[in-house]
């Protein structure tokens, strides 16, 4: 029996959901000639799944037919599941109709691999092209680049898509060989590096010539599966840092491995490593937005992030000599390093202190989480009473606040 669009949606959205990226940010595309849609730069989550992830794009596979047999993937060749494929028209029609109802910011299209990388990518591009050219669609489009894609194909993809991504999937070559025998890191890095050059060249051109056509204005991203293979957080975070620095990626996504398969090449996990994944994202933010170097967040002596406390608190406890920070005098960068003080609060503090001394109550009202910040700040030339030279004690008090109250009771 022929599958209905709803049946296909069920299977191909389900198969695409392990790609965690759903960002619709970082691109700016205006609505042209009274057409449909735009990309505003900030991205909008139109809904959230029951697991709390942003739903911003219609994220589907074109098909789950696949010639590869990657152990971590539901669509792997050896898995006995129903295989279906959307037609070009069906994807276009769904995208436009979902978009017009304000369900989504756009389309994130990926696919199982049929025939070869280029053949598959050409099919994805055909859809993006139709949306742009025939429907004057200016919403967000994220296209997956299949490892091994040729420059000709990627050049066309960049013309129609806002963002492109080649997934690294497994953080080390050795592990990758073991569980995805048809893939290697070279087939990922070659297109990634080519895109990097192409994007840089395009940005350079558009500074010089006003009419330069856009090429992947939202840049490129990648994803790593975490917990399916033995790599440490130290390894992973250093890898991410180099991807941000060398490949100039906009985002690196971490996908806690969900034990979807009984494949014997993979560890038998009971549960997805969600806390670990969360800590990796926090560390990633510290690196990108808080001015931390990777070796300040993690080093080889403790190669995995502390699961009980966030990495910023971890840093502060390992570097108590840098604290307490005087909120009335310290530079913005140091205030940003205080656990419990985020970017917004740090900005309010440095703006306000120009007018006079900022007090404990002021900081609290400005939004600092004092349960953590109180150990690491000083207000009028002296630390707060909570400050203690013993990191273990601070750590304990923060993790078990209720127990502490109990102790003081007796």
């Amino acid at each position, binding site marked *: 029996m022929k599958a209905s669009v709803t049946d296909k949606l069920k299977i191909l959205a389900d198969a695409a*959901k392990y790609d965690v990226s759903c960002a619709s940010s970082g691109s700016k595309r*205006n*609505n042209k000639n009274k057409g449909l849609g735009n990309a505003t730069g900030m991205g909008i989550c139109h809904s959230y799944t029951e697991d*709390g992830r942003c739903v911003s794009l219609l994220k589907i596979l074109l098909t789950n037919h696949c010639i590869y047999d990657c152990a971590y993937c539901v669509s792997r060749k050896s898995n006995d599941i129903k295989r279906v494929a959307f037609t070009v028209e069906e994807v276009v029609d769904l995208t436009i109709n979902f978009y017009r109802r304000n369900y989504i910011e756009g389309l994130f299209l990926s696919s199982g691999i049929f025939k070869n990388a280029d053949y598959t990518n050409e099919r994805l591009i055909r859809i993006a092209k139709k949306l742009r050219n025939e429907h004057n669609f200016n919403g967000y489009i994220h296209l997956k680049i299949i490892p091994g894609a040729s420059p000709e194909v990627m050049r066309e993809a960049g013309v129609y898509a806002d963002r492109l991504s080649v997934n690294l999937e497994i953080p080390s070559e050795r592990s990758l060989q073991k569980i995805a025998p048809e893939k290697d890191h070279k087939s990922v890095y070659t297109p990634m590096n080519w895109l990097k050059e192409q994007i840089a060249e395009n940005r350079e051109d558009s500074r010089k010539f006003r009419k330069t056509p856009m090429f992947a204005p939202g840049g490129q991203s990648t994803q790593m599966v975490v917990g399916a293979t033995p790599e440490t957080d130290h390894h992973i975070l250093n890898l991410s840092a180099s991807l941000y620095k060398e490949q100039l990626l906009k985002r690196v996504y971490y996908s806690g491995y969900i034990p979807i398969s009984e494949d014997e090449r993979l560890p038998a996990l009971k549960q997805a490593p969600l806390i670990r994944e969360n800590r990796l994202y926090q560390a990633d933010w510290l690196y990108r937005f808080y001015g931390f170097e990777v070796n300040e967040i993690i080093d080889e002596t403790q190669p995995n992030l502390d699961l009980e406390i966030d990495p910023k608190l971890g840093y502060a406890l390992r570097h108590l000599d840098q604290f307490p920070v005087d909120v009335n005098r310290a530079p913005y960068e140091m205030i940003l390093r205080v656990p419990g003080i985020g970017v917004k609060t740090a900005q309010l503090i440095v703006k306000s202190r120009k007018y*006079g001394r900022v007090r404990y109550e002021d900081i609290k009202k*400005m939004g600092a989480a004092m349960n953590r910040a109180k150990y690491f700040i000083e207000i009028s030339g002296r630390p707060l009473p909570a400050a203690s030279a013993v990191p273990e004690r601070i750590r304990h008090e923060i993790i078990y606040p209720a127990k502490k109250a109990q102790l003081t009771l007796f």
Partner: protein
Amino acid sequence: MKILYDGSFDGLMSVVFDCYEQKMVPTAIIKMHKYQPEMFDQVQTVETNAEKTKRVIDGLHKKMTSNAFNQLFKAFHSEFDDIELTIFNYIRLVISTKGYIGTDYRQEPILRIKQVVKMMNREIHRMHAFVRFQLTVDGIYAATVNPDFDVMPFIGEHFRKRYADQLWLIYDVQRDYGIYYDMQKLQTIHIENPEWTANKKIKDSLLADKEKSFQNMWQQYFSSTSIAERKNMKLHLQHVPKRYWKYLPEKSA
């Protein structure tokens, strides 16, 4: 002294004028239709006067950036009970201080305005996210909403830029007005005797043929894209509070 006014932003500006002119110190500034008399109340009603309003607004523009002024205008639409007095106190600080004071967040009214604007912006962002258009038989993409604050004046531009090639309507069912885009311009409209369903949604009989089928597909997509092994309803509710569910097809089915 409690001051009553007509509830408009212009009205509030006239209140500022009268307070300065008559040296009144308000203890509360209340929208007339919200006022409930209490014993021993000292009450004064201020009429909105275009000339007075203009003089206050012109004066403020000399003392503060237009961005800061727009923040006051936005904060006003939060409809919080304390918002008029907070704006009044903010203006008093601006007028009495030499130089720029807008970023001294140690000052109560300045921090409060900043925080209220943040709440307004979040609600505006939620409307950008949670408006769900339904195609009606007359070819209008229509949505009913019930936002926490009066955000209609701040969301039209976003939708106009995005949905330039379709007719659309967003209607605030609680405040009983909305914005309509006719593919040329935005209009603020009020619908006389609207025919909503009992819970203020658009009646099924008014929907275009395929509308329900797209809603069903969206529901299918939504449930398929969730990962059961990762289910975390606490996080889910934090992002999509229950009060918005009614108008979200993926949550109300």
